[in-house]
Every structure is written in C-alpha cells, then in structure tokens.
C-alpha cells in the first residue's frame, strides 16, 4: 500500500497542485510585506480562472486567456488597493467582500455569457502549452516528475527567484518592505508608501490571475463554480507558514501541494473521497498551529500576553 501511495506520481502531482498555491502565495506575500493581509486572494483566483476561460474561448488563444485573467487581476488589485489603502477600510471585510463578489459574479456571468449552470467546458477553450524538456526524457524518473508540465509550473519557479531578488536585492523591494513595516519612515525618505502598497496589491491581483488561469487552462480546460476551492486561503496559510519569505513560502506551498496529492493517492487505496479531500484543509490548520505555537514558545515564556 505504501508503495502505491509514495510513487513518483505523488511527487509529480505535488508539483502540479502546488503551482497555483505558489503563484497566489507570491502575490499574497507581496501585500503581506507591504502590510496588507489579503483575504481576497480566493476571489482573485476565481476571477482569474473564469476570465482565463473567457479569453481563451472567445479569442482563441490560451495566451489571450492568461492576458485577460491578468488584466482582470490588475483591475481587482486596484479596487482592493483603493478600498484598503485609500479608503482605509477593514482589509478583512474588503477581502471577504471580494470573495463573495467574485463568487456571485462568476456564477452570474457563467449563466449570462455561456448560458450554463455549474460548469462550462468546451473544446473551444484552448489549454496552456505543456513544456517538454528533451534532455530529461532520457532519465526516466526525472522525466516523470519534471517533464511535460503545464507552462506555469516552470514559470512559478522562475517567479519565486524573481520575487526573492526583487524583495531583498533591489531598492524598490526594500521600499515595499519598509512600506509595510514602517510607512512613515519611507514617506519621510521621500518615497510614497501608498505607491508601494498599490504596487503590491496590483501584483497580487496579477499573480492570482495567473494562478486562476492555470487552474482553468493548465491541466483541465473548464470553469466550474467555486473552482478556486479555498486555494486562496491555503496560499495565505503558506505565506504565514513561510513568514512572507518567497523561498520559505515556496516550501510551504509544496508541502500543502503534497498533502493535496497525498489525499488523491489515498483515494486510490480505498479511503472514502470525503476524507482524502479533507487532508489539505486539516494540514493547513495543523501547519498554522505549529507555526504560531513555535513563535509563542520562542517569544514569551512567563509573560501574560500584553501586546497582542
């Protein structure tokens, strides 16, 4: 049984399922670094998934699908930014409002554009290209694990490096971190923290748009209601677990991807699907518990928490 569980396919599957988490988490960690907790990633991913399908179906190219998803991501990032940064609204409430808005809007548009309820799939939706790396083909296990993934799988790894470099090696990245940690310090240095926060918010929209279009155009070519399936929240957990550091967040996302993949494998060996589907959710709660517990053990022993 263990052999069936822990196969190469498990690793391959982990890489696959982690991809949307990695993409969304990269966006979310940018807002997190800029001092904004983005609960609305869930909705942003959902919108990305939907408009990816719209773009691909009507414009006849997967690139157009991704482009439209990104465009919508920019828009929703701007809206999120406007409410949270300029109107100074509660980021929790705005995030939740965006999730509900995305849920309602996609269901509504699904019916008014495609005339269907629940799900839309069609051969007219052009999927994203798969990448095959020739020299890997000769090494069979590397081939299984790393080859023939959808393009965003590879792009997401590149993005991790790019975001890491941006945050820690460039002035703009430093400003973004400063805008979250101590915006006044940045402001008095003559750099607008508002601008940095907006950049993070829009970037988050873009990354979530890509995550969404990967969901609906990557391996499957369809859109279903609530397709994001809490990935936005799991990505948030990965960010918290990874302390907003791109590398650590990547590891956390891979971990959650692994649990997702494990859940699917468990189904193969006969565990009821309801239980296997619970695995990533329970793993997320457990991960959050571990990370906060560790922080607590480190920080305050003996002191009754005064500053929350």
């Amino acid at each position, binding site marked *: 049984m263990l052999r069936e569980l822990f196969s190469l396919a498990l690793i391959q599957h982990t890489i696959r399922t982690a991809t949307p988490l990695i993409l969304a988490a990269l966006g979310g960690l940018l807002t997190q670094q800029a001092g904004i907790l983005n609960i609305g990633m869930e909705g942003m991913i959902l919108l990305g998934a939907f408009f990816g399908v719209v773009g691909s179906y009507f414009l006849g190219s997967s690139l157009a699908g991704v482009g439209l998803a990104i465009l919508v991501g920019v828009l929703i990032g701007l809206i999120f930014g406007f409410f949270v940064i300029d109107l100074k609204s509660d980021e929790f409430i705005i995030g939740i409002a965006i999730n509900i808005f995305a849920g309602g809007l996609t269901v509504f548009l699904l019916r008014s554009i495609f005339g269907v309820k629940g799900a839309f799939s069609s051969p007219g939706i052009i999927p994203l290209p798969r990448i095959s790396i020739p020299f890997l083909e000769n090494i069979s296990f590397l081939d299984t694990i790393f080859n023939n993934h959808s393009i965003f799988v590879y792009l997401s790894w590149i993005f991790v490096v790019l975001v890491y470099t941006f945050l820690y*090696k*460039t*002035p703009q990245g*430093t*400003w973004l*971190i*400063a805008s979250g*940690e*101590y915006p*006044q*310090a*940045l*402001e*008095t*240095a*003559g*750099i*607008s923290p508002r601008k940095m926060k907006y950049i993070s918010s829009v970037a988050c929209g873009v990354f979530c748009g890509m995550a969404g279009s990967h969901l609906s155009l990557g391996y499957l070519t369809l859109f279903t209601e609530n397709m994001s399936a809490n990935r936005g929240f799991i990505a948030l957990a990965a960010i918290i677990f990874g302390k907003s550091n791109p590398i650590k967040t990547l590891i956390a996302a891979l971990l959650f991807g692994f649990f997702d993949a494990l859940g699917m494998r468990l189904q193969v060996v006969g565990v009821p699907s309801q239980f296997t589907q619970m695995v990533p959710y329970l793993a997320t709660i457990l991960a959050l518990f571990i990370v906060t517990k560790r922080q607590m053990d*480190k*920080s*305050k*022993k*003996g*002191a*009754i*928490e*005064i*500053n929350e």
Partner: protein
Amino acid sequence: MGDKIIELKNISKQFPGVLANDNINLEIDKGEIHAIIGENGAGKSTLMNTLYGLFEPTSGEIYIDGNKVRFLSPLDAIKHKIGMVHQHFMLVPSFTVAENIVLGIEPRKNKLFINKDEAIKITEDLSKTYGLYVDPRQKVETISVGIQQRIEILKVLHKGADILILDEPTAVLTPQETQELFSIVRNLVDNLGKTVIIITHKLQEVLQLSDRVSVMRQGKMIGTLNTKEANEQILAEMMVGREVLFDKLERKEVPHKEILKVQNIKAKDNRGLMIIKDISLNLKSGEVLGIAGIEGNGQSELIEVLTGLRSLEDGDIIVNDVSLINSTPKEIRNASIAHVPEDRLAMGLSKDASIYENILMGSQYNEEYTKIKIQLNNKKIKKRAKDLIKKFDIRTPSEDVLIGNLSGGNMQKVVIAREFSFNTEILIIAQPTRGVDIGAIEFIHEQIIEKRNQGAAILLVSADLDEIFRLSDRILTIYEGRITGEFKQGDITKKEIGLYMTGRNKSELGGGIGEEING
C-alpha cells in the same frame, strides 16, 4: 547671523474640523538655532511637516533663499536641503543602520540592485565626518534610543540637509543624553554651517540652546524673540496666553500607614527576558512615591505586575498583609488598587465606545449599576458619568460622545475620573499627563495631590522628571530592573537623578549635594 534662509508667509493648514495653522509667518536666518515652542496641539508639528513637504498648506507661501517653492512631497524639501528628525524616529526596525541611512537613495550596482557594501562605506564615512559613531551593520531594533537619534541625524545629513528640523528631540533622552545632543547641534551650527530649527515645549532647553525663539499658540504665531531677551516666565505666558502660575501644590500632613509591600520581585518582558531583576519597595498612605527612570527599564512591567496583568517569576506583593500573587486583575481591583495606565488608548480606554461606557469599566457587575443582577441600569450609569464629567471638567457635549472624538487631555481626564472615583486605598498612576495640554496638566496634578491629602497611597511612574519632582514625596530611581536609589523630596537635583537613572551614582558627579537614603 546672516540672511533669511527660510520665509513662511501666511501659511494656513486646515484639517477636517481643525484649523491647525492659522496665517503663520516665520523667518529663519542662516546659521541660527531657532526654537519653536508651544503647547500640545499649538500647531508646531503641523507647521514643520508642511515645511518638510508632508502636508501641503491650504494657503500661504514658502520661500527658500528668497525663491518661492512648492513642496508636494518630502522629496521636494530634501532637494532644497531641508531635513527633519522626527519625534518618533523614522527608522525601519528590521533594517540595518546602513540600510536606514540610504533608504530612498540607495547606492546601486548594475542600475537595478542595491550596493550594500557601498551603503556601509557611506555610513562609515558619514560617521567619521560628523564624529557620530554608529555600527552600520547593526539592526536598528537592537539599538538604544540615544543612538537611534544619531542615526536619524546622520540620515538627514546624508540627504544633504543644510537645514535640520528637530521635532521634540529630547523627549526620550536622559539629561545626560540631552546635553550630548546639544553639543552635537552646536557643533553642526558653529563649525559645519548648518541651520537648525528645534521644536520643543521644554522652556529651559530653549533658553540654553537657541539663538531665537518663536512661540505658537492654538495654531497662531504669537511672536519671535531673541533668546537673550527671553525668560521662562515670558515664554510660558506667550505659550498659554495668560499668566501661568505653577502654584505650589498644597500638601497636608497625613498619617502614614504602610499599605503596599513589594518584596524582591522578578518578572519577564514580552520577549521572555528577565526585565525586573529585583525590586522591593513599600508604599504608605498619604504619600506620592515617584519612580524615575528612562523608559524601558522595567517600569511598565512593574505596573503590570502590580495590577495583575503580568505574572510574577519570584517575590511577593502584599497589600494590607494579604499576598496578591496570582490574583486576577479583577481581584486586584477589588483589593483596592486603581490604575491609570501609561498608554490611555492602548489600555485605558476604548476609543470606539462612549464616555459613559468607558466610565462603566470595572463597575459593570456592581449592584449599584445593575438591575436583576445581569441587566445594566443605564440611567444610573449615565448619571454617574454626568457627575464625573462635571467634577473632572471633561469638555464634551454629552456622555454619549465617543472617546475617539475627545482631545488627549479630555481622554486622560476620563481615565482619571473613572479610576479616582473607585476611592481605592492605592492608586497606581503612569504617565498621567503625557500628551496633555498645560491647563489639563495643572488640573490633573491638583487631583493627584488631593487624593494624596485624603490619604491615598500613590505610586507614580513618569518619564517627565519635572512631574516626578513636582508631585512626589519620595523618589525611587529605576535602572535595568533594579531600584538604584531612594530620595526624599528636595534632597536631590535633577542632574543627580539623571545619573542614578543610568545606573551610576552621584559620586561620579564630583562632590555630593543632598543625602541619599538607602532603601
């Protein structure tokens, strides 16, 4: 002195509901130290933030070297060689000293990336040029307040500032650090050709340091004097707008009885480090016991331990022969301890609740204010709130107003009204007049002494040495979690106390005045 380097003409700044600056005119000469004084809320900081480009004035003009300028952001001010050291240092805690100094104008390599080595070199060079030593690689969050101020000054100088604005620079410094800062400032002006504007409300510092002084009151500029022609009395009157009589507070002789005994306590801070290492003290009825110390030496934790908000590692706290170890805040309140916390908005009030709801805190299950045990009796609650509003002169249209809409002084009065109305034997009072205007300070001080005269035992913690000296019957100094000295009122000077607050003692001052009583 020379030419006018800055001219502000008819500057007004309107915020929703407040005219923070009302038609201000001000001229700064090149190479002078110009002090701007005024009470909290007089508009000094607003004016300086306008000059630094953080606010755009609603109307009025700014001239630098005779040229009209318009500042839309600090960047514009920086370009005109204006730099500002804010009261709350503008340093990112998780960044290193060097990263903070170059923030916004990072040296680059390959155009895109930060050149961290270059940043460190810049910092080292600056450090040498101005004789202000800092470690470029150290993280700011691990650095003391005095050094952080140096970093701020270096940062501003690195941006090429010729005009430095210092906003309340001595608020967080010890007397010794203050003198050090003054010599730095003198050096910048006399030897390096800089111009300094210093915002403060401490009159003695103005008289000691500045060349000229401008006084603001309620958003208006009252006038500018040569410091030589000024004295404390004149400046205070200009600030407050009437004759200020710091009346000697009337102390009655009250019988003393020991009420609170603290024995060799130890406690940890939020990071888990032992911050209170060994403190013993006793508090008697009818006295004010002042605790003098630089912030962060365990005062806050001491208060939290005494009020049940922090657990004790070791030692004992005894009130009227009963140990309070492991008591909840509620039990401690019932044991006759009331508490005016150091940060009213963080702990003393809910800004989203009304005045009467804030006054209710602590009495919500008191029979006097409930019906059938569980239901609140709003009539009586509001009646009490009204009485206290009157007695404590809280300026508000009604008890229904949200706390967040009150001024700092009135907020503080709400806290004091509530805590004093419990008529407890012990009052623990921290920073009672922080961010409060002079009128309210007078009032609060009188209330504290009245409580003392009625026989309350009062423990007073304040970062304001003047306040400690004015109110206390006895003074303890605290340094790194230990009591370093005990003095009777009148037996010690502020300068000497400053030494004890930094862990030294007065033998280092050379020649002792006043007598130390060992506790």
